[in-house]
C-alpha cells in the first residue's frame, strides 16, 4: 500500500517559493504535508495532498515541473523510540530508505511518517510494516486526515 507524493521543481530565486505556495492557496489545495530539500540553485518541494492526480494536472498545466512518486505512510506510535522501531524493521528486511519526513495528522496528535524506498521494494516494505502491527496509510485514509 502506498500514497502518492508530488515533487515540484523550484528554482532558487526570490519569490519563487511564494509563487508556488500562493498557487497552492489560490487553488484551494489542502496540504497534508510539505517539505523542501534544496541545493544552491534549486530545490525540490515534496507535498502530500488528498487528490494527487487532480493536483499534479493542475500544476503541470501551469508550467510547474513535477513528478508523482509512490511513498509509504505509516502511523507512528506516540512513544520514544517509535522511529527507531520502524527503521529497525527496514534494516532487518534489508530495505534501503531513500528519504523520510514526518507530519502530524489534522485534528489529532498522531504523528505520521512518510518514507521513500526503491519502487520495487515498496510492496515488501508496506507488507512487513503491517505484519509488525503498524498502521500503513492508504489514499483513502488521507481523506479523513
Amino acid at each position, binding site marked *: 500500500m502506498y500514497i502518492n507524493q508530488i515533487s515540484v*521543481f523550484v*528554482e532558487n530565486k526570490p519569490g*519563487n517559493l511564494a509563487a508556488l505556495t500562493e498557487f497552492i492557496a489560490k487553488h484551494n489545495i489542502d496540504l497534508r504535508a510539505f517539505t523542501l530539500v534544496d541545493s544552491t*540553485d*534549486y530545490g*525540490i518541494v515534496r507535498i502530500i495532498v488528498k487528490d494527487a492526480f487532480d493536483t499534479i494536472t493542475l500544476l503541470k498545466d501551469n508550467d510547474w*515541473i513535477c513528478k508523482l512518486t509512490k511513498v509509504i505512510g505509516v502511523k507512528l506510535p506516540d512513544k520514544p523510540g517509535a522511529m527507531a522501531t520502524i527503521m529497525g524493521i527496514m534494516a532487518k528486511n534489508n530495505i534501503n530508505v531513500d528519504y523520510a519526513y514526518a507530519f502530524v495528522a489534522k485534528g489529532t496528535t498522531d504523528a505520521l511518517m512518510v518514507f521513500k524506498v526503491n519502487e520495487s521494494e515498496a510492496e515488501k516494505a508496506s507488507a512487513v510494516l503491517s505484519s509488525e502491527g503498524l498502521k500503513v496509510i492508504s489514499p483513502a485514509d488521507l481523506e479523513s486526515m
Partner: protein
Amino acid sequence: MGKYFQEEIETASREEIEQWQNDGIVDVVKRVYENVPYYREKMDALGVTPDDIKSTKDMHKLPFLTKDDLRDAYPYGLLARPLKDCVRIQSTSGTTGRRVVAFYTMNDIHLWDTCCARAIVAAGGTDEDVVHVSYGYGLFTGGPGLNGGSHMVGSLTLPMSSGNTDRQLQFMTDLGSTILCCTPSYAAYLAESIHERGIKDQIKLKAGIFGAEAWSEEMRKDIQEKLGIKAYDIYGLTEISGPGVSFECECQDGMHVNEDYFIPEIIDPKTGEPLPDGEKGELVFTSFAKEAFPLIRYRTKDITYITREKCKCGRTHARIHRLMGRTDDMLIIKGVNVFPSQVEEVLINQGMPANYQLIVDRVNNSDTLEVRVEMTPEMFSDELAAVEKKEKEIVAALKSMLGIYAKVKLVQPKSITRSEGKAVRVIDNRKI
C-alpha cells in the same frame, strides 16, 4: 498537384539558371545605379560602373552591403522604386539598434509568396492540406510569408500566429491541421504539450516547415519522432524577402535556393574573397529580381556551404547546407570559440531537448560561462541526488564539447527570455 510547384523553373538546367542570373545581375546593377544614390556612391567610390558588370563572373567587383548599410539608409535610402509603387513594409526582429525595414511592391509580394509556395509543395503540401501557421504575424516575416505561400498552393490556411498553446492544439485537433509552420523551438514545445495531454492520436500532422532560428539534426529527429511527421528546414531573411529564400525538399539534404530570384555566394568572412562550392564561409545574397528593395551582395553573417549538384529530388537549384552558426554568433570565451549550437547538441545528446541560454560574463578579468537550461519533466526526479547527477553529466558533456568549464543552472520552464517567439540564446555581459 505534383512534386514541384513550378517544375520547369525548379528543374531548369544549370545553363538556364546561369542565363537568368547573368541577365538579372546586369539589370539590377543598372537599376540601382540609376535610382539609388546610396548604391551609386558606393560603386563610384570603388570606381565600378554598370558597364563593368556583364555577368555573375563580374560580381566580385561590386561592393558588399551589410546590416549597417541598411541601418544607415533607414528608412528610404535603399528604395529602388517610388514609394507609391510599394504596398508593404516588413521589419527584422532585431533587438538592438535601429530596426531594418524592407519594402515590397505587389510583384515582390508575389515573388515571396511563390518562394513559400515552392517550400510548401516540397514538403508534400497540396490544395487538400490544412496549413497551420504558428509563426508570428505582423512586422515579422514568418507568418505573412507562409500564409501567402499557402494561399498560392491553395491549401486551407490557419493564420494562428504564435502563443496560446491551448487554442493551437484545439484548432489542430478540431480542424485537422496537416502541415505545421513555426520556429523549431515552438514545434518542440507543441510536441511536448501534445505528449503531456496524450492527444497524439487526434493530431493529423504529416509535415512541419520550421525556420527563423538555427536548429540541429538531433532536434529534427526529436521533433519528427514526437509528432510523427517529416520536418523540413526553411531559410530566409527579411532583408532578402522573408522565409523561403531557400527550402528543403524530401531529401532533407540541404535547402534549395530560389535561384531564379536570388544569387547565393559564399565568401571568406575575413577577406571577403569568394570561396569555391563545398567550402564553409559566410552566405551572401543578391536579390536581383526584387523591384522595391533589391540588395546586392548582402552579407547575411550566416555560415554554411553551397552545392550546385543536382539533387535526388530532381531540383537543380543550388543547395545551402543547414546553417552552421553565425559570424556574429560565435563567442570567444577564455580564448575558445564557442557556438550556441554546440550547447544545443550536448543537451539533445543527453536526451534533453531543452531550451537553453548562454550567459557570458567577466569576473576578475576572467571569462565565465553559465548555461541556463529549462527543466524538463524527463530530467526531473523527486531525489536531489538524481537531479544533481544529471546536472553533473551536462557539465561534463559541455566540458568535452566546448573545451571549457561551464556552470550549469537549471531553471524553471519558460523562464528564458524570448523575443518574438525566438529564445534569446546568448547574453554577453562582458564589458570589453
